[in-house]
């Protein structure tokens, strides 16, 4: 268990710090509530519609595509760094990975997922 | 000569009728259904010819088709065994079965489910033949389950009415409880012997089981639990009376040739296991005797013709088990043999009556059928005489053999109980005969005028079976070693029963005379009560007339007798029927079912479809399991 103890101390310390600051803010700061202060913060724009209004399903699609093309391409960086050591096999494997990725892109494109309207 | 075809004919018939029955004419269906069993019968005769032509010492044929499964070192072949015991059984099954099929082709001819009926019936034959021909426990178990399944299908054949479907289910469920015992017994055998082959288990039984304190008793008792289910003994007999909800030929088949005899056959087949355990033997006899008394006393008060016959089957099965327990194994099988003829004959006769009366089975409403249905009457009478054990009908020989075996092995008390059963048997059978066939008719005039006797095919079946009931007893003449041909024939498989020379001080003929006398007395009593003075209540109403005072006094004797003897028996029987049958046993079964379903309802509450709740449940279980595992590991 020795390996866990420093981690535990860190965990406790950071929690305590966070709680102390929030509490201090709450206790020490001046609290004058006006209606405009209680409004949801919208960059100065008038509030329109309820906060919990569901997002349009398109956003989810975009999020999914983001995961597909952005996050998965992170995979390329470590590969590129050690490509020389790994040799040809790694190159072929990455091509296979790309094949699937391109397939997915083609599918999304054909299905119209890339069009906003 | 191959043994297998005898099984394949009915199986083929079942397949053809089951799959194409809807497209065939009824004529074709009947030809396929009856013909396939006819072929089996022919094949049985051929096998029998070969059997008898081979020298006496080599009369056991084992036919191994292939290895069905192997579990570790345990090899289970698909093997059939034809020896004296299975020869007798297939003879009974195919012979009686064939005539029941023949009868059915007329009896069921107006039924829309004709093809389905014959498919089930043929399958039933296949399963029973497999059961008696199997060379190992597991293969026997297949037949064992098969007859259970087919009886379920056939009892619930007219499924439109709930009663019938429920009766079918009851039969299957009660049978499965018995099967549980059989299965556990089989596991114990594997555990002890490492094989399931009859030959290996039975020949090695003494050396293997001698060292074991509990297996030696547990195995036969567990197997006997299976037998009580299949052969309708206490406490699992409850399904059989309800089983008459099926078509009448099915009852005949279940009660006479197939199904209920399976338990008797099984105990006889594995008798070396029983011989090692005197307590198990005693339990078998005790259950048998109790069952025969209980069932016979219940039969005394039933008005439904088929129900009387159903209880009488239970009672006769009790005799068979009593014989098995008394180490007279071949007498038990002998009774199976004779019983098959007369019980099939009686059931088929009651079927004719039921047909003629459009489903009426209440004997109180019949009367006078003798004049209109002479053939049915005479065959029914032969069956009843055989069942009552009257000389020279078949039942006399087999029942008497059993009673003497009881005397020799368990003494006069068990013998007396058996004789009491014989008395009740004679009484209730002739009560039915006198009420239904004799006296003035109580039917409506119109119905009575239009009564018809058995059709030709039915008549053939009835006459053949009645002849069988008449002569089949002569294969074993009691009291003489040289004339005991039946047990002599079986002696290659089953040990010869002990004869009186061993112990009994009372000559066998005296016992015979007593039991015969008691049976005759039962018939006489039935005659007095139900034929000689059927208008007893009416005459009692007349008693105030002075001129008939003497006569009235005479009847008073009968009244006292009635009050002192018949009423108590009637009350006792009713009580037994109410308390034991309806309240206790049905109640127990119902309570188990209720508890199971209540638990099911509990499970359903947890299954509420709410995914958050599922997640919570899963998480809680996860937490518990993980914590426990973590700290125990």
């Amino acid at each position, binding site marked *: 268990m020795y390996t866990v103890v420093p981690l535990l101390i860190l965990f406790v310390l950071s929690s305590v710090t966070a709680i102390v600051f929030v509490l201090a803010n709450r206790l020490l700061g001046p609290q004058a509530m006006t209606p405009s202060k209680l409004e949801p913060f919208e960059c100065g724009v008038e509030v329109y519609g309820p906060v919990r209004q569901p997002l349009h399903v398109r956003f989810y699609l975009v999020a999914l595509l983001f995961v597909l093309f952005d996050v998965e391409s992170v995979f390329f960086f470590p590969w590129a760094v050690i490509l020389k050591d790994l040799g040809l096999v790694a190159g072929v494997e990455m091509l296979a990975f790309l094949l699937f990725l391109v397939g997915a892109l083609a599918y999304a494109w*054909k299905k119209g997922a890339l069009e906003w309207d | 000569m191959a043994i297998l075809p005898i099984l394949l004919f009915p199986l083929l018939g079942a397949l053809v009728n089951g799959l194409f029955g809807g497209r065939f004419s009824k004529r074709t269906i009947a030809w396929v259904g009856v013909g396939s069993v006819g072929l089996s019968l022919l094949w049985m005769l051929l096998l029998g010819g070969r059997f008898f032509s081979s020298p006496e010492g080599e009369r056991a044929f084992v036919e191994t088709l292939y290895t069905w499964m192997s579990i570790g070192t345990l090899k289970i072949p*698909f093997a059939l065994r034809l020896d004296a015991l299975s020869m007798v059984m297939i003879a009974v099954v195919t012979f009686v079965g064939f005539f029941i099929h023949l009868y059915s082709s007329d009896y069921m001819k107006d039924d829309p489910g004709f093809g389905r009926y014959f498919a089930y019936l043929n399958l039933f034959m296949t399963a029973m033949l497999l059961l008696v021909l199997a060379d190992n426990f597991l293969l026997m178990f297949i037949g064992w389950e098969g007859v259970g399944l087919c009886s379920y299908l056939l009892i619930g054949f007219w499924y439109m009415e709930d009663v019938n479907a429920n009766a079918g289910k009851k039969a299957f469920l009660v049978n499965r409880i018995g099967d549980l015992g059989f299965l556990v017994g089989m596991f114990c055998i594997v555990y002890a012997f490492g094989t399931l082959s009859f030959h290996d288990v039975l020949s090695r039984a003494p050396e293997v089981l001698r060292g074991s304190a509990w297996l030696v008793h547990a195995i036969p008792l567990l197997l006997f639990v299976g037998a009580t289910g299949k052969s309708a003994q206490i406490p699992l007999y409850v399904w059989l009376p309800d089983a008459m909800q099926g078509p009448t030929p099915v009852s005949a088949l279940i009660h006479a040739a197939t199904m209920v005899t399976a338990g008797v056959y099984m105990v006889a087949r594995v008798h070396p296991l029983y011989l090692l355990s005197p307590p198990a033997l005693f339990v078998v006899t005790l259950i048998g005797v109790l069952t025969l008394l209980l069932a016979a006393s219940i039969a005394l008060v039933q008005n439904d013709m088929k129900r009387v016959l159903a209880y009488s089957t239970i009672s006769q099965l009790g005799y068979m088990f009593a014989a098995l327990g008394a180490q007279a194994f071949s007498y038990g099988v002998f009774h199976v043999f004779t019983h098959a003829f007369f019980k099939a004959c009686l059931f088929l006769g009651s079927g004719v009556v039921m047909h003629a009366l459009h489903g009426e089975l209440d004997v109180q409403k019949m009367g006078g059928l003798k004049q209109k249905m002479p053939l049915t009457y005479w065959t029914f009478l032969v069956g009843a005489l055989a069942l009552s054990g009257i000389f020279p009908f078949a039942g006399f020989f087999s029942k008497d053999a059993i009673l003497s075996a009881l005397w020799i092995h368990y003494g006069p008390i068990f013998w007396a109980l058996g004789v009491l059963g014989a008395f009740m048997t004679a009484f209730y059978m002739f009560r039915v005969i006198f009420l239904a066939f004799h006296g003035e008719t109580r039917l409506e005039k119109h119905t009575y005028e239009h009564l018809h006797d058995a059709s030709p095919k039915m008549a053939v079946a009835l006459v053949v079976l009645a002849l069988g009931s008449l002569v089949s007893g002569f294969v074993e003449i009691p009291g003489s070693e040289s004339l005991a041909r039946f047990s002599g024939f079986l002696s290659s498989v089953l040990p010869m029963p002990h004869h009186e020379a061993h112990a009994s001080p009372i000559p066998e003929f005296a016992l015979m005379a007593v039991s015969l006398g008691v049976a005759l007395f039962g018939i006489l009593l039935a005659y007095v009560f139900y034929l000689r003075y059927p208008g007893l209540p009416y005459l009692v109403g007349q008693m105030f007339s002075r001129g008939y005072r003497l006569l009235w006094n005479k009847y008073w004797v009968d009244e006292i007798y009635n009050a002192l003897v018949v009423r108590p028996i009637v009350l006792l029987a009713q009580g037994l029927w109410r308390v034991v049958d309806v309240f206790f046993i049905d109640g127990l079964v119902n309570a188990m079912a209720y508890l199971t379903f209540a638990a099911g309802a509990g499970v359903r509450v947890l299954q509420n479809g709410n995914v958050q709740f599922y997640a919570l449940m899963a998480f809680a279980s996860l937490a518990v399991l993980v914590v426990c595992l973590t700290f125990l590991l």
Partner: protein
Amino acid sequence: MDFRVGLVAVEVALSLLALLFILLGAWQRPNTSPTGAWAVAVLALIALGGFSLSSSGIDGVARSFYGLVVSDRLGAFLGLFSLISGLLVLFMSPAYLSREGIHKAEYYGLVFLSLVGGFFMFKAASLLTLFLGLEVLSMPLYVLCGLKRNFGKSPEAGLKYFYLGAFFSAVMLYGISFLYGALGTVNLEGLAALAISSNRHGLMCAFGLALLLCGLAFKAGLAPFHAWVPDVYEGAPTTITAFMATFVKVAAFGALIRILFSLPPDILPVLKPFGWLVAVLTMFAGNLGALYQTNIKRLLAFSSIAHAGYLLVGLLSFNALGQQGVLYYLLAYTFMNVGAFAVVIAFGQRGEENVTLDDLRGMGLRHPFLGVAMALFILSMIGIPPTAGFVGKYYLFAAALSAGMPVLAVIGVLNSVISLGYYLRVLVALFMMPEARAVIIPPKGFGAKVAVAACAVLVLWFGCFVSSPIAAFQGAFSQSMLQPGTIARLP
């Protein structure tokens, strides 16, 4: 330690097929049913089945994918079962999917993808491969469950399965991370070092192992993690229900076998009581839950829970009988379950495909072929000879007995008796009730009937001819990549 692509040829082919069919779905014209695609898919699966059958005789153990995937007899057999399940499901798919208006080429692609995942689960040589396989198996299934978007219960099923599945994936991954932390490796051989008491990381090991096993128990539908099964099986398209009920069980049990047989023997005595408890809970939860069901899909779902319990009984025996029994039962179970669902599909109708017991009334007599086949499947599930189900059950319970667990065997047999309560109701409805509906349209699909016929014949075949498959299964465990010595040291 290198790639050795030949050993993962089936998986590679399946992956490419999956990609192909998904793309095909994009270019498919709307409102056309891809019958050609179906034919190609079926042919491809048959070819792959033949290939894996021809290579299932390989002796010994070979590794590929840099040691992450193992090829041995166990994997070959489980792969074969999976392909059979997939093939049977594909056979009955076109008629059903066209009827429900969801016949798309993507369906086949997703089925293939799920198969790939399953293959990597039971061919895993490392915990990470196992986890990846699990995810690849699950993701397509989430989609397939929700495929019938116009039918309310289907998306609900997909979503429920996804939520709970994601939760347990996380649980499993969490467990794997602990094991990695304690052992410093994710290889299955590394698990042999899991000497709990002597290691100073003992607590971590135990915690990790417990989480890992719970995650797999969820996938296998073992109680108390079975709650999702009835809802998901009911809502999913019936073909997918059949696929999940058989193939996912094969994969989950394959993975369980891999892990349990990699553990050092001294842990087993501690694990056994838990397994015992889980098996008993599972059997009762399945059988008692099924008693009240009137919807056949739900009824079969509960019964599949119970069957998982029986399988666990065999697995817990840790003897040769139990191992043969588990494989045999998985095979038998595949046939009887797919067959039963195929019959349910055949009797169903568009939209209200919730075939209830009432809808089945009298159908056995009107359609004798389907009726008799269904009766056969039900009898096999009850365990009545001579069906494959009986043989499987016999082996499982015999294994429990010879492993010295008579109580578990008796509870198993008792549960078989309880199960009669609902199985009989199906038979009663089929054969012993007057017909409920005047007109019923039998399925036009030729494939569904082929699947039913094949299953019926095979259920009987494997009930009658037992020796040769059993002999083949005998070597499956002893010649597999299971920790050497583990089996030898088992009681």
